[in-house]
């Protein structure tokens, strides 16, 4: 019997209600069906709206309570009676949700050709609004494939996979943000893994806390596998601190040594703030280079004893003696770094390049130096500068012969605001890479808990931003500058859960989306990575086939 009561009983589980009003600027208002309660719907949830021959994909931006009877407020019904409460909610008192239509998925065949289009109109009155289905998410973000990496699940949609097009992603520099403990490292590890798995770029990771290479830890101090344990043949671990690596059971592929001759004045000026150097003192390095010569200045300067000799030098260079002495003082600190070698470095840059050239991924562990920001910045800058210079040469060559294009390179840095703050962003190599977009095929993945410390212009150049919870107003402003729908995203962003949830928006996704970041660290998660690896990575297959695995 197809009666009302039966319809009522067997309610269509996904239908939420219908459009009752709206505008393009403010989104549409949806009246919930009587049996739907406002508390089952969350801000950030995705919905689809069916309108004649169009289907809209949108997001819930606000939730309200409405009443048909204005006396309800002064004369509330006896809601202590559960039956009455149940009846009143959804009928006399009903729920309203605000939905922002984001995309139009047209329902004809053109859909597959053009893909989802930005919503430039709104659905008509009484259009049916439902919770978005897994298929809707797939239509919008694409299926898991050899370019699309499953990064997480849309909010409250445990079976729908949100896939990120890795090839698109690495065309620009990107950022991972979130306050401390929100899951940046876990998220970044997944992104690194996705890039390895899809084989679209080589990577260089400056692993400050030594948590990406061999193993990391979760909050409850359980070990989680690092990338080398999952992709042994594709990942090389370089170390600055061999002793620490070995203590952690890692046998590094290469131990990096930096020679005095490798250090350039530019490396020092980046450290101005970190070493608390005055402008004059930092600039003195350039004068010293001119005076002693490019390869010797650092060595000669540190070898100077105090007294007469020093005063003479200051006079010769026409530099305030106190400034020069403070520079010497700070630089002497470097002597304590075992990875810096007076007698000359090993050619780490060439080593790194040779790995990258083979399409491998180099993770540089800092060991105990990870807690020394000056060491981290010095090394990251110094190596990146040289590597970038080589890529520039490759790219130059490729101008004549496009087949010579180097494999794209993605460089990951943590504490990015230290390299990209407004006063030094213009001087550091990282600032250059971020601003030049993908010139020379090199892009950045910046990881930071204080995005407001990063230069605005650099922030606006980042293609895709994936951000976990941020609660500082300035940080919120900074990640959202120049993003449309700013105000609404802001409210979504500040309401994320404190862990493992992120808002993703920008160049490589058709619309902003809140996700629960994919689990990392369980046996199932590792199993899934392996399955994906055989399914989506053809190189690996071939290697297996011909038995020439590294």
């Amino acid at each position, binding site marked *: *019997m197809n*009666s*009302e*009561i*039966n319809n*009522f*009983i067997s309610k269509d589980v996904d239908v939420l209600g219908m459009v009752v009003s709206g505008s393009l600027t403010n989104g549409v208002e949806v009246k919930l069906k*009587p*049996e739907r309660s406002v508390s089952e719907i969350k801000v950030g949830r995705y919905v689809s709206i069916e309108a004649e021959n169009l289907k809209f994909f949108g997001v819930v931006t606000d939730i309200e309570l409405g009443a*048909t*009877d204005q*006396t*309800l407020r002064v*004369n509330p*019904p*006896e809601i202590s*009676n559960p*039956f*009455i409460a*149940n*009846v*009143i909610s*959804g*009928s*006399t008192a009903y729920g309203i949700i605000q939905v922002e239509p984001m995309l139009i998925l047209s329902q004809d065949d053109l859909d597959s050709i053009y893909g989802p289009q930005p919503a430039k109109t709104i659905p008509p009155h009484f259009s049916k609004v439902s919770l978005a289905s897994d298929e809707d998410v797939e239509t919008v973000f694409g299926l898991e494939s050899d370019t699309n990496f499953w990064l997480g699940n849309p909010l409250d949609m445990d079976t729908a996979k949100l896939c990120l097009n890795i090839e698109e992603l690495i065309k620009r520099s990107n950022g991972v943000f979130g306050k401390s403990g929100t899951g940046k490292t876990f998220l970044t590890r997944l992104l690194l893994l996705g890039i390895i798995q899809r084989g679209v770029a080589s990577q260089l990771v400056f692993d400050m806390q030594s948590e990406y290479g061999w193993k990391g830890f979760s909050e409850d101090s359980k070990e989680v596998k690092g990338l080398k344990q999952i992709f042994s043949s594709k990942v090389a671990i370089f170390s600055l601190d061999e002793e620490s690596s070995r203590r952690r059971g890692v046998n590094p592929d290469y131990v990096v040594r930096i020679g005095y001759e490798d250090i350039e004045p530019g490396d020092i000026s980046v450290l101005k703030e970190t070493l608390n150097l005055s402008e004059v003192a930092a600039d003195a390095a350039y004068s010293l280079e001119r005076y002693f010569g490019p390869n010797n200045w650092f060595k000669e300067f540190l070898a100077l004893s105090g007294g007469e000799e020093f005063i003479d030098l200051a006079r010769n260079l026409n530099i305030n003696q106190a400034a020069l002495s403070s520079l010497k003082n700070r630089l002497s600190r470097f002597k304590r770094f075992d990875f810096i070698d007076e007698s000359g470095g090993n050619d780490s840059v060439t080593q790194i390049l040779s790995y990258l050239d083979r399409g491998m991924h180099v993770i540089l562990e800092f060991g105990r130096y990870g807690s020394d920001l000056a060491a981290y910045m010095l090394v990251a800058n110094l190596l990146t500068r040289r590597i970038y210079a080589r890529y520039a040469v490759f790219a130059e060559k490729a101008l004549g012969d496009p087949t010579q294009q180097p494999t794209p390179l993605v460089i990951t840095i943590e504490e990015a605001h230290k390299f990209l703050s407004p006063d030094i962003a213009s001087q550091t190599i990282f600032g250059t890479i971020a601003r030049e977009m993908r010139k020379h095929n090199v892009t950045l993945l910046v990881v930071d808990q204080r995005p407001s410390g990063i230069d605005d212009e650099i922030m606006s150049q980042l293609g895709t931003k994936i951000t976990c919870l941020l609660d500082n107003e300035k940080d919120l402003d900074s990640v959202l500058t120049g993003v449309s729908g700013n105000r609404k995203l802001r409210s979504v962003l500040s309401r994320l859960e404190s862990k493992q949830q992120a808002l993703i928006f920008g160049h490589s996704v058709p619309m902003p989306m809140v996700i629960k970041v994919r689990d990392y660290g369980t046996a199932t998660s590792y199993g899934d990575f392996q399955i994906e690896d055989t399914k989506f990575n053809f190189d690996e297959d071939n290697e297996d086939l011909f038995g020439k695995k590294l």
Partner: protein
Amino acid sequence: MNQDNRIGEVVESSSLQFTVQCYDLYKSPNIGTLVKCGTDPQLFGIVYDVSNKSMDPARRPVPRGRDENKEEGVYLSNPQLNRLLITEVNCILVGYKSTEGILQSPVSLPPRIHSFVIECSEEELREFSSTLDFLPLLLESPILNSIDDVISSFLIKSSKSHDDKSRFLIYAGKELAFNLSGQLIRLNNLLKRISK
């Protein structure tokens, strides 16, 4: 036709309501009961008033039990009372049966006098109450101001015919809420009654 459920015959009718005289004194369905009468079309009504009185309006009953110990004694000593007194039931018309099933809408012709009136079975009640389109008809009925009692008894009886009793009542409650927007106090009272 189930002889047992027959309660009486129509003695007065209009297109809004009809009056039934019961076959037996005091043997009437109670308020809120769904009844049917007539054929082609079969009409449905809901009992909204029951009265007991003298068959002859001109002759009022007089007290007879001064010497009796118990009330029944009055009837035993005066067997003619069972013929002189009658029970009458008033029903409001709420729908009819057409070829497409039961329609809940005003009827176009009143039932004929002497139509047999039968109390509906539980199955019929379930079928009838599976939609509640007639509620506005009842809620706005000019017939009587105690209509809310009729509605609540009808809904409680109907709920017992459905498998999921509480689900039915919530559905009914929401229909009431929909029809009584702006009459919050009335709604509240009605809901209180059917929630018991």
